[in-house]
C-alpha cells in the first residue's frame, strides 16, 4: 500500500529547523532538527513548559509548525491537507498527557476505538483489545467506565489504546506520571518490546529514574530548544 520510497526511508520521524509559536513573540519550540530511526526508542525530557508536548503535537499534526519541515513516515506534515491527517494518525499511536479517554464508554470501547477507525472486524478487535488490556493489567476492568478507574488505571487504558493498533510510531506523553515505579517499568518494557517489533517510540518524561535505568537516546529540551541529543553525541564517536 505505501509508496516504495516511503518504506525505504529508515527514519520515519524527521524534523528540520522546526519552530512553533502559539503567541506572537514567544516560541514554544525553536529551531529543532532531529531524525529518529525506525524501531528506535527515544526519551524526550525537559522542564515543565520546555516544549515536549508541543513537539509531540507537531508530530501527529495536532498543531502546525510555524517554521520548518516535518516528515512523518515520509510525508511532509507542514503541507498535509486536512483530510489526509486522519490517515496519518491511524499509523501513529499517542498516549496523551491528560489521557483523553471517552467518558461514558467502557474501557474496552475506549481501547477498541483504535481498531474501529481502521475497520477491524469486531471479533478480532475484541480479542486484540483483551490481550492488550491484559498486558497493562486491566482485563478485569474492561467493562467499567474510565470515571470509575484510578488515575494510574486510566493512564494504562490510554497506553493500551495507543498500542493496540500496533502503530508504526508511538508518541507517549508522560505515560508513567500516575504510575508507581514498578508499574512504570512494566509499561516501559511494553514500549521497548514494541520498539523491538519495529515501532518507533518517543516517550516524553520527567522521571529521572527511568532515564537512568534505561540509558536510551535522550532528547532534552530547554525553553523550546534542543539542548541535548545524547544519541547524536554518541553518533559523533
Amino acid at each position, binding site marked *: 500500500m505505501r509508496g516504495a520510497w516511503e518504506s525505504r526511508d529508515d527514519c520515519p520521524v524527521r524534523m528540520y529547523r522546526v519552530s512553533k509559536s502559539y503567541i506572537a513573540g514567544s516560541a514554544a519550540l525553536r529551531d529543532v532538527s532531529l531524525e529518529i530511526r525506525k524501531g528506535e526508542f527515544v526519551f524526550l525530557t525537559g522542564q515543565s513548559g520546555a516544549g515536549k508536548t508541543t513537539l509531540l503535537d507537531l508530530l*501527529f499534526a*495536532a498543531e502546525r509548525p510555524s517554521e520548518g519541515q516535518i516528515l512523518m513516515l515520509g510525508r511532509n506534515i507542514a503541507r498535509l491537507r*486536512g*483530510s489526509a491527517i*486522519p*490517515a*496519518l*494518525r*491511524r*499509523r*501513529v499511536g*499517542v498516549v*496523551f498527557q491528560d489521557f*483523553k*479517554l*471517552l*467518558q*461514558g*464508554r467502557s474501557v474496552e*470501547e475506549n481501547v477498541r*476505538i*483504535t481498531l*474501529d*477507525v*481502521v*475497520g*477491524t*472486524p*469486531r471479533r478480532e478487535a475484541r480479542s486484540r483489545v483483551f490481550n492488550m488490556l491484559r498486558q497493562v493489567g486491566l482485563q478485569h476492568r474492561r467493562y467499567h467506565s474510565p470515571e470509575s478507574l484510578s488515575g494510574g488505571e486510566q493512564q494504562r487504558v490510554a497506553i493500551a*489504546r495507543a498500542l493496540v493498533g500496533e502503530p508504526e510510531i508511538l508518541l507517549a506523553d508522560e505515560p508513567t506520571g500516575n504510575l508507581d515505579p514498578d508499574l512504570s517499568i512494566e509499561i516501559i518494557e511494553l514500549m521497548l518490546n514494541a520498539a523491538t517489533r519495529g515501532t518507533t517510540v518517543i516517550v516524553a518524561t520527567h522521571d529521572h529514574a527511568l532515564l537512568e535505568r534505561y540509558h536510551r537516546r535522550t532528547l532534552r529540551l530547554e525553553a523550546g530548544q534542543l539542548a541535548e541529543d545524547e544519541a547524536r553525541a554518541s553518533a559523533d564517536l
Partner: protein
Amino acid sequence: MKRVAVILAILGRSALRGLQSAAVTAAIATATIAIALFLVGAFGLVVVNMEGLLDRFGRDLQITAYLEEGYDANALRGLAGRVATVEGVYSVEVIDKDAALERFRAMSGGAALLGGLDGNPLPASLEITLDDAHRTNEGLEILTSALDGLPGIDEIAHGQDWIEGYARAVALVRVSGYALGTVLSLATLLIVANTIRLGVYSRKDELGILALVGASRTFVRTPFLIEGTLQGAIGGLLALLLLLGAFQVAVPQLQYGLTFFLGSTEPRFFEAGEIVRLLLGGAGLGLGGSAAALIGWRS
C-alpha cells in the same frame, strides 16, 4: 466491500452507544423535536379542518341567473344543461316562475307585497354553485362572461356579495395559514438544528478525541448523523402519538363548539400519507439538524 460493511456496523453501533452514553441529552433533544413537530402538526390539523369547513360553507353559496320571460320548461332544461358545461360550474338547479313565487311568498313581508298583484311578476332562474377552485372573483368573472353569451339570461345576482366575503374568509385562512405555517416550519427547523447542535456541543470532547485517534470525518460524523436522524424520527413518532392523544381528548371536549360550526361533519385526523410525511419530516429534520450542527466543526 467487507471492510465497508464492518465499518458501517461499527458506525451504527457507535451511534447507538452515543445515544446511550448521552442518554439525557438525547432524550431532551428528542423531546424538543417531538414538541416542535407536535406544534406543526397541531397547526396542520387546524388548517386542514378549517379548509374543509370553508369548503362546505362555500358549497352552500349560490349564484342566481334570472331569465327572460317566455321560457318553457324544455327550453329551461336545455339552458341549464349548457350552463352546467361552463368552466367552474359545480351544479345548476332550475327554479321556474312558480317555484320563485312560492319562495317569495315564504319570505317575510313577501305575502303583503304580493297582495295587490295579478299574475306572477317573478322571473324564472338558475341557481348555480361553483366548484372549490372557482369560488373567487375570477371564477365569477369567467361565469359571468360565459353566461353573457347565452341567450335568455336577463340578470345575474349573487346575493349579499357573498363571493367577496367568502374570498375574504378563504384568503384570511390561507394567508394566515401560510404565514404562520412558514414561520412555524422555519422555527422548527432552527429549533431542531439548535437542539441537536447543543447536543453535539455537549459532546465536543468526544468529537475531538475521535479526531485525535485518527477517525476520518466520515467516521466522526456518521454516528452523529444517524443519531440525529433517529432522534428526529422518534421525535416525529412521539409528536404523532401526542397529536393523536390530544385529538382524542380535545374533540369530545370541544364537541359543542365543533358541531356548532362544523355542522354534522366530524373533524378529521391526518391521513396515512400525511402521517408518513410527518415522520419523514421528523427524520429529515433530525438529519438536517445534525448535518447543520456539524458544519464548521473542525475535525
